[in-house]
Every structure is written in C-alpha cells, then in structure tokens.
C-alpha cells in the first residue's frame, strides 16, 4: 500500500485479556519494526524483523509480549494477560533493506482498564 497501515487504531481491553495488534508494511519493505510510545514519552524499541532472518526481540519488555511476521509482510504483535502498564501507543514502521529512515504507521492506542 501507499503507507504503513495499523489496526485497530484504538483498542480498549480489560486487564488480563490478550490483544493482537496488526501491521501492514509498505509493499517491498523488508524491514519491519515495532516501537511503543507511552504518554508524553519517546519511542521504546520492541522488536525488529529483516527479511527471513531471525527477529531481534531484545526490546520486548516481558514474555507476555510476542510478535510474528508472516510471509515477510504482515506482522502481528501479541500481548498476553495485559496489564495497565501496557497502555500506550504501539507504532509499527517499515523500511527498505539498508535504508535508515523509517516510515511509521499511525499507531494503535491500547488502553488497559
């Protein structure tokens, strides 16, 4: 597509429930990134996918967080047993291999109540 698409744009969930966040990167972009942005804060790196290589999961805050990327395109970030501190905007970005600038989606605002 023309840009990075994320869905849903907003998600309200009850504490303890699982959630799935989706990212459709720009066609042809082999690199995909997930970041988290808490209110009024900068961007916290979560995970990185590049082509068929093993993802770098070093930024995932706990084992409740996982992500996959199917067919080198769409990615899903899953948060199990959500906690209130998981409330944030989850941003996805993609780039061409070797390109350093990212194109971000508009994010998914997650609220855990």
């Amino acid at each position, binding site marked *: 597509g023309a840009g990075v698409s994320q869905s849903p744009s907003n998600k309200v969930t009850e504490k303890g429930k699982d959630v799935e966040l989706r990212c459709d990167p720009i066609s042809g972009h082999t690199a995909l990134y997930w970041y988290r942005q808490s209110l009024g804060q900068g961007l916290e790196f979560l995970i990185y996918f590049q082509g068929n290589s093993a993802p770098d999961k070093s930024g995932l805050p706990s084992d409740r967080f996982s992500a996959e990327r199917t067919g080198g395109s769409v990615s899903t970030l899953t948060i199990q047993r959500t906690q209130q501190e998981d409330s944030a905007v989850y941003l996805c970005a993609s780039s061409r291999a070797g390109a350093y*600038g990212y194109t971000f989606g508009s994010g998914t605002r997650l609220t855990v109540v």
Partner: protein
Amino acid sequence: GESVGLHLPTLSVQEGDNSIINCAYSNSASDYFIWYKQESGKGPQFIIDIRSNMDKRQGQRVTVLLNKTVKHLSLQIAATQPGDSAVYFCAERAGGFKTIFGAGTRLFVKA
C-alpha cells in the same frame, strides 16, 4: 547506557521566526542521525537525516547541524509556520538497525 536527550522539552516561537531544536547524544559510535516530526494522533514522520561524516545538511526550510566534538545535534526550521507545530524527535543509530529515539520537544507556533 546509551541515551539521546533534548535540552528543551517545549519551544514556543512566533510564526515567521526561525526555530532551533537541540539534542544531545551520548554514544560517540553513532554514525547516523535522524529528525522526526510527530503530529497529534499520527506516527513520527521522517524530516531529515545526517551521517557522521557531515556537519551540516539542508532540506526544504530545514537544516540539521551535527557537532561531533560535543555530541550535539540541532534542527533549524526557517520561517516557522503553524503547520510546523508538533513534537520533534532526534534519533541516532550506531551501525546496525536499532534506532534510539530521544524524549521529544514540543514546538508551539504562535500566529
């Protein structure tokens, strides 16, 4: 640990004036720097970048300056417009892929 921070959390300027947003970084191994603009409800948008072998780069109404001696980065916006109101992030990369973002500076443009 590695960090990228900003000197001023908020900046208010008059429409038509020039804006300067500053950023300090701590990793002397960083070789690539980027400025992003984030408007309310949107993801960050790439503005301009600079590699460590340069000290200045110009775009349309924007200039990035890099001073490696003092590990300082700045974004200059000429003739600031209301549409420039946003949060601006500096970011750095020390090889590889991982980009470290600063906390952001909010720019207010007064009409």
